[in-house]
């Protein structure tokens, strides 16, 4: 998925640890999103941002935090990792009035 870079690809965390999932886009898109996907399920919106300095909660924000200091970056932070946060995380972007959603390749997170 050209233009949206997510890191890390895989990560194993212990309960209570903290980490940040990075998402960077080089398309100058205003809108950015973080989703999680559990096995056999669809995408649940965690947080989203309509521009630098603006963020808002999605459907499942508990246990996560985000920031948007620049247009390019939208990191997702897990402060106290819990087993329920074991999931695949996707970052996505879309430009204002755009029609195409660009997804990152996903980050596999396991909390043990």
């Amino acid at each position: 998925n050209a233009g949206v870079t997510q890191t890390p690809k895989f990560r194993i965390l212990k309960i209570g640890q903290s980490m940040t999932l990075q998402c960077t886009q080089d398309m100058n898109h205003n809108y950015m999103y973080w989703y999680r996907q559990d096995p056999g399920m669809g995408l649940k919106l965690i947080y989203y941002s309509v521009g630098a300095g603006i963020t808002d909660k999605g459907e499942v924000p508990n246990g996560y935090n985000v920031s948007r200091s620049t247009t390019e970056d939208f990191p997702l932070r897990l402060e106290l990792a819990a087993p329920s946060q074991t999931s695949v995380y996707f970052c996505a972007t879309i430009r204002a009035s755009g029609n195409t959603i660009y997804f990152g390749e996903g980050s596999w997170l396991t909390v043990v």
Partner: protein
Amino acid sequence: SQELEQSPQSLIVQEGKNLTINCTSSKTLYGLYWYKQKYGEGLIFLMMLQKGGEEKSHEKITAKLDEKKQQSSLHITASQPSHAGIYLCGAPRGGGSNYKLTFGKGTLLTVNP
């Protein structure tokens, strides 16, 4: 509450059969996306519908948007094992701007050879 409801949740069909997946919104639709995914892999864009009554086709997959019913349907003709995967519908919210994108829970399609 789930804003986008997909039905069925899962579907098993024999190769060669036709099938339909529905996506119903509890709010006004300003457009609708269809994506396909193999679990754990990236999402594959299928199509986007923007206007009521719009219908698009790609190979053997056809999607239609019924704005009045706040619903979209995805139809696969003569299904093949390559069609297997999770089908997701997604919609922008908020007065026509694309600022909040939510997705349905997905429909898991299995195609038996």
